[in-house]
């Protein structure tokens, strides 16, 4: 057994579990089918809206500034991705690694600060 095949097997298990997750739910739903009644009623399939006809058309739109959060999130997510390997190896890198990461984080924190100062960290 090579290391590689162990490795792949680990993730095969992951894949199997994902399959089982879907399968389990689907299977139980299948079982339920035996016991479920189906009684169509006129208004049963209408969208629930507190008991009245759906009012108005249109779709909710959040303002674009809200999107800034999403953006920040993606940026920091990427940052975190780089941070993880660094964190495991910090002991090895010592001060050098610390400084490198500090610079990295500081630059991104600058972005957060900028957003904060520009007052876009608001819901609207």
């Amino acid at each position, binding site marked *: 057994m090579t290391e590689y095949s162990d490795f792949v097997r680990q993730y095969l298990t992951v894949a199997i579990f994902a399959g089982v997750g879907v399968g389990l739910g689907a299977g139980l739903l299948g079982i339920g089918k035996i*016991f479920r009644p189906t009684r*169509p*009623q006129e208004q049963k399939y209408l969208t629930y809206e507190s*008991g009245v006809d759906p009012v108005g058309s249109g779709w909710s739109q959040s303002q674009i500034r809200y999107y800034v959060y999403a953006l920040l999130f993606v940026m920091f997510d990427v940052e975190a991705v780089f941070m993880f390997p660094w964190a495991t190896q910090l002991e090895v890198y010592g001060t050098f690694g610390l400084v490198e990461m500090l610079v990295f984080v500081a630059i991104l924190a600058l972005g957060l600060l900028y957003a904060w100062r520009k007052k876009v960290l608001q819901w609207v």
Partner: protein
Amino acid sequence: MGLVESGRVPKPLSKLLNLSRKYSIWAYQWGLACCAIEMGAAFASPRYDVMRLGVIPFPASPRQADLVVIAGTVTDKLAPAVVRLYEQMPDPKYVISMGSCANCGGPYWDSYSVTKGVDQLIPVDVYVPGCPPRPEALLEGVLLLQERIAHEDMAERWKGDPIVVS
């Protein structure tokens, strides 16, 4: 077509299923008038605590509910909503009519805007009298309903009268 409608579920199993429905009655939150507060007391007051009996008042929408307690006055303006919300519940579903207003129009029997009884709109399983009924009276109604469910013929209920979508 499920197995149940054809009535081919073995006795012990259908008994088990009945039991599960008996002890798991999710009731959705909809209060109409004064009775709603007594219903709220039965649902939420630690003194009555309907959850003991297996009536779980979690769902806020009819989609997850088994039971609706029509607690209060049904007006003509509200009637379509009552029907719709009832129909939006998934089968098997049960209705308790609580209080004189829901039973028959109650104190507003002569009003121009009140529906004289919710059973003109939707089928009712248990009537609880009172104006308002004490929370314990509602609990008694729930017990009566549970009794009904425990002895229910599932095939019968499942089949019911097929309700045709126009």
